[in-house]
């Protein structure tokens, strides 16, 4: 059975989303080769160009709402902690509209893997600026007057309590695949911030190609992680580390909900007992 659906792919030529799609596809292939079942995976997508990945992958998916993939994913984990949940979200989607949810998922250490397709623009709505656009970016809705500095999402996530943090690049698919794999293997909240080329509105491939370097140091120290996360501020022309930035093991949130699921009957019995009947 194919891992890709028949849905016509409507991403632009040269779009970095293809690299993410195929990284995930390959990982699922691996999974099944290793004896797991793809039905144990659920992919939750936001709304934007990135979200179309839900149409393209022939697996369980929730094509959710703009900015709201994370609460859906959290609900899925509350209901069934055994499912592997991947969230494919956009930068507008998860760093603007849905930022709050993302930080709370990190805080709670929900065991999900979030892949941020960070093309640093709102792709699907025609290239407006996002929280990671540099302050010089002049989109259809902002002047690029240097007055809004970008967020550094890695720092925000470190502060929020993310237990796995990595940065990848769609121009380096092999590394990307490994990072996503590591994120999925991590028990707890994992986020892979993917610098994704947007061929139509923000094609920084040559910039990224020049500045991104592979980081392979120790990733267990939060202070070093901070320095590493801060090496590039999403605004300047410095070098950009890609790799695992931070990794830590902490109790996961959904353990709280590991009740034995009861059937309707026993729940009704509990109510009847409550009534003292």
């Amino acid at each position, binding site marked *: 059975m194919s891992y890709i659906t028949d849905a016509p792919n409507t991403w632009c030529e040269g779009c970095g989303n293809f690299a993410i799609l195929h990284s995930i596809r390959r990982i699922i292939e691996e999974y099944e080769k290793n004896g797991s079942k793809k039905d144990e995976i659920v992919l939750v997508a936001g709304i934007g160009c990135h979200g179309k990945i*839900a149409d393209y992958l022939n697996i369980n998916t929730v*094509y959710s709402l703009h900015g709201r993939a994370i609460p859906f994913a959290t*609900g899925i984990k509350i209901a069934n902690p055994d499912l592997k949940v991947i969230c494919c979200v956009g930068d507008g989607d998860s760093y603007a509209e849905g930022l709050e949810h993302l930080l*709370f998922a990190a805080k709670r250490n929900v065991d999900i893997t979030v892949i941020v397709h960070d093309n640093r623009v709102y792709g699907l709505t025609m290239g407006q600026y996002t929280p990671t656009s540099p302050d010089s970016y002049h989109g259809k809705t902002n002047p690029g007057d240097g007055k809004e500095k970008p967020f550094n999402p890695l720092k925000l996530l470190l502060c929020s309590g993310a237990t796995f943090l990595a940065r990848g690049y769609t121009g380096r698919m092999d590394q990307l695949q490994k990072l996503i794999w590591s994120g999925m293997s991590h028990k707890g909240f994992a986020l892979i911030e993917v610098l994704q080329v947007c061929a139509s509105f923000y094609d920084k491939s040559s910039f990224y190609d020049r500045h991104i370097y592979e980081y392979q140091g120790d990733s267990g120290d939060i202070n070093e992680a901070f320095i590493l996360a801060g090496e590039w501020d999403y605004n300047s022309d410095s070098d950009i580390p890609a790799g695992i930035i931070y990794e830590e093991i902490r109790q996961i949130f959904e353990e709280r909900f590991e009740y*034995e*699921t009861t059937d309707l009957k026993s729940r009704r019995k509990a109510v009847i007992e409550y009534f003292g009947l």
Partner: protein
Amino acid sequence: MGEKGSEIEILIGGKAGEGINRAGQVIAEILSEMGYYIFMIFDHPSLIKGGHNYSIIRASEHPVGGIKRKPDIVLALDKNTIKLHEAELSPHTVVIFNSDKVKNAEGIGIPAVSIVDSAGGVPIMINSCLIGAFCKTAGLEWSDVEQILLDKFPVRSALNLDIARKGYDISEVKFQLIRAGENRAKLITGSESLGLGLCYGGIEGYIAYPMSPASGILHFLSSKKDEFNLKVFQPEGEIAAILMAEGMACCGCRAAVGTSGGGFCLMNEGISYSGLAEIPIVIINSQRQSPSTGAPTYTAQSDLPYAISAGHGEFPRIVISPGNAEQAFMWSAKAPGLAWKYQVPVIILTDVTLNDSLYSLSPETVINEDYDYGYKEVDEGPYLRYRFTGDGISPLGFFNGNSGPVKINGKTHDESGISTENPRILEKLAEKRIRKASIIKRDMEGEKCVLRSGNSNSGTTVVSWGSNGPLCSELCSRLKIRSVQPIVLHPFPEKQFETAISESSKIIVVEDNSTGQLSELMKSYGFFSDNRILNYSGRQISLETLEKRLMEVI
């Protein structure tokens, strides 16, 4: 000395933080044990300590739906209680007051502070003292109440009982309250009943952000989560709440959310998602007074058209508004099944009066109702989450590996759940929803969507909804006129409603809002009201006032 055979009304008032609600509950329990039907409101402003809180307990041999605001006995923990309720007192009202705090009052003064102090108690035990005094005043035998009191004081029972006894001894007999019958009822708040109903209906998860007057459900379910094997969670806000619950539903786990006005607003996008992606979900919207933050702890019935149209685009839904603990249990137990069967959002509209009031509930009458709706399960062949079927309902598959990939989608999609903007499929999808809506409308006529009571031969019919239903029912029974309460408000139960009001010469609609929302809804179905009695003071109208206003128009 007054005789109190069939009913009594007691008001207890003091400051927030003094345990007024709890004390009222104990009194209610005593009266319930004596076989009375109970209705108790709890009136409290939005603050934590101070201000003025009060409970009014009405107990009667007959089912009670409201209060009279003509208390027979007032328990005043402070001066304010007497001052603020002056107009409600009648010559026969007996005021029992804490004479250590209230000076120059008429009635039975109890030096409660001194009694508690000398017994070595803590301030909250003043309540026990006054409750004891109340028992004497009402003419109850100490031997009758002793055991009840002991049960109701879970901590430091002996000391409490001792203090109560002192209050009892110092008080005077003013009424002779007689046993009304066997107690078989359970006293329960609307919030608790909603929570229990949800559980009985099979809810496995309840996700909510605190918001008056819905918080009571959350607190109750949270405290019972282990008993009921429930997943209860308070997330970062209402948007997250509803979407987490929908995420749970995708796994086959029934879930509900509860909130009030502003939180309900925030859930609208999630409701619309449920509409298009066909996610079953139960949403309790506990109405409060006024738009925006309004008056959080005061009542209103002002979100009816909103509940019916909330969320953009067109999709089927069910809107239900129960009126007391019994109805709340039954319909919150039905709601998950209905949501599941039709894969739609089910909205339960409640209000401050229902959520916060205490009711007599007879568990036997509600637990044996039919709450099993079932749902269309996955069958053979390749699974299509949104398969086009004759009734618009697709087999419901979950993320459990039983059916191959399940594709949930909030964009317009084909049968498999893959996005499409094909005009023919857009049409088919809309028709799927339309078909589902008409199936729901048809099926719901099989439920008891409209309650009738009072004198069904009367040409005068009072129509009300939500917490006003039982109120009108009680009054109409007494006045020998007809009372009609639609519980299901959308799809509007046209046939049942038509039957219920048939041959009315005069229709009067009673509502806690300022525009006549039910009356307008009725109008759009061709049912015209002759008069509207609208109340928007944030407090449920009293039986006395309602009677007066009814008399003006009958």
